[in-house]
């Protein structure tokens, strides 16, 4: 599934040796270049439009489309300042961080522990329990909304961050266990047995052998889970019932239904929401693609 592999290999056809051969070949490919150019434009233009809009003055946005920016060439940071100062987006951004970090680290830890038990400890009903985990992977979160809210109501967990942390953690577990277990069972048995013979405890084997050897899998899963939580709207709608704790997605949605066509505010706040995933995308693209591909079964 590695894209790097895909990217590294040369195109299938051989390179023609003569100049005229190359020209003929290039001409043959002209339709492909045109089609792919069109694909690139269709996939880039909407996002670039948003970024350009977010730095245009409000009056320009309402008068002309972003593609006419070249004729006006007026830029401003006003939109960002107003969503940060007046629309509470800075607090929402901080809330995103507060929600996302425990909601990534907790499932990562719990899933790794459980996956280790499912792969390297023998205990009764192990395979039956693992089948239950696989089955739970496909249970839609909607099934849990009403009962969990009932359960949490007396404790007020939805007024603070506890409900959303626990909900994200629990729903991430079945897939995380499935993924990590399938990685852990590929680790060399000799290594683990040798450590046991040397007297390492079960937890010692987990900490000193299994986790260090599984960093790629754990990193990919961690990045996937982090972005999943960062981008989430639905769980926040259900499990965050205190407006001061709203993440960006909910805040933007509120902006959209409240002001409708205040494009300058929407564009700037949508970019605030996108900036972290974009940084992750460009800096950790390899793990990111692997994580997302892996996460697709979720």
């Amino acid at each position, binding site marked *: 599934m590695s*894209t790097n*592999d*895909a990217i590294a290999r040369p*195109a*299938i056809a*051989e390179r023609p040796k003569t100049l005229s051969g190359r020209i003929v070949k290039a001409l043959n*490919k002209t339709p*492909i270049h045109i089609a*792919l150019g069109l*694909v690139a434009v*269709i*996939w880039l233009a*909407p*996002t670039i439009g948003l970024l350009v809009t977010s730095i245009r003055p409000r009056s320009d*946005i309402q008068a002309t*489309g972003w593609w006419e920016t070249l004729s006006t060439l007026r830029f401003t940071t006003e939109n960002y300042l107003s969503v940060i100062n007046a629309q509470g987006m800075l607090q929402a951004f901080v809330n995103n961080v507060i929600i996302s970090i425990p909601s990534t680290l907790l499932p990562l830890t719990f*899933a790794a522990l459980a996956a280790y*038990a499912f792969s*390297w400890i*023998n*205990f*009764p009903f*192990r*395979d039956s329990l693992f*089948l239950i985990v696989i*089955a739970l*992977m*496909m*249970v*839609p979160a*909607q*099934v849990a909304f*009403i*009962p*969990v809210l*009932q359960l949490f109501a007396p404790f007020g967990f939805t007024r603070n961050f506890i409900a959303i942390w*626990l*909900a994200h953690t*629990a729903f991430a577990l*079945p897939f995380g266990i*499935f993924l990590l*277990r*399938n990685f852990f069972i590929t680790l060399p048995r000799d290594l683990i047995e040798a450590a046991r013979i040397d007297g390492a405890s079960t937890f010692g084997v987990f900490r000193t052998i299994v986790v260090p050897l599984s960093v790629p899998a754990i990193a*990919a899963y961690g990045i996937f889970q982090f972005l999943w939580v960062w*981008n989430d*709207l639905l769980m926040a709608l259900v499990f965050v019932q205190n407006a001061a704790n709203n993440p960006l*997605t909910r805040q*933007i*949605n509120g902006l*959209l239904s409240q002001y409708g066509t205040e494009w300058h505010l929407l564009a700037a706040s*949508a*970019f605030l*929401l996108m900036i972290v995933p974009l940084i992750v*995308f460009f800096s950790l693209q390899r793990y990111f*693609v*692997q994580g*997302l591909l*892996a996460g697709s*079964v*979720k």
Partner: protein
Amino acid sequence: MTASTGTGTPGLPAVAIGAAPPKAKAPQVEQRNGKVALLFLLPTVFLLTIFLVYPTIYTFLLSFDRGRRGQFTQFVGLDNYVNLFTKDPNFINFSTFPPSGALFNNVLWLVFYTSIVIFLGLVIAVMASRVSYEAILKSIVFLPMAIAATALAVIWAFVYAPDSKTGLLNAILGVGNIGPISWLGDPGFVNASLIAVGIWGSVGFATVILSAAIKSISSEIIEAARVDGANELQIFRRIILPMVSLPISVLAVTLTVNVVKLFDLPYVLTSGGPGTSSRVIAFTMYQESFPGGLFGKGAAVAMVMLLIMTPIMLFNIRRFRSESVT
């Protein structure tokens, strides 16, 4: 799919998209130790019981109840289900042709979103494999996968803006003196417009998966076919297509799961509107339960969702068992 084997990256096992089998049953030599295992499993068992096992039973029972305030108040038998399927045109309405309602919109998504994503993913993957800027092109198409559906919704709200001065699509149509069209405000257009956003967001995913599958086809086979006089179309139909049929079926399952869980795009872009014309089942579950307060009905919709997921669940379990045995 064997795409990830033999790469230099010790990345995730290709279990990933569910295509490649986890090879063997878990190793058997480790200590037999139920008590230690319990310690490792304790947080998981606790959370899965509270958030998945117990709620599934609760919601199942609640779907046969009035469910006022989310509690068991009055047993109503199958009423919630009967009402959903026969008396709620917002959920499913067979009296018109074509049918309408949230459930039917999911069918529209399933048919058009799934097939077009796979088709475009395949076309782009094949074309990109023949040019030198393949990597960057795949990154461009994959980029929307990183972005929150909420942000995709805002991006496309600009594209679909009904004003031909500010809405990109209507500005383009305006050049040919067509429109402006209210893409999200007209019940005749809204579902197609939303599905188009979904497609735009997912094609990169299909492209990357299918591209990896295409790379796994040996170039000798293709060269040999070319030498034997096969044209590009024949190579595509007789060599590439059969080789990617397994990844395509895996993609189809994944995209189907996406469709069942689909919520953010309709919620943010249209709130299920205009009227109720772009609702989908996950939206209905949320809307009827929380703003609506009809918890019995919401529970029934959640059960319908679970029912739709059940064949996929059984498929996963069967695959795991057959792999454990061999």
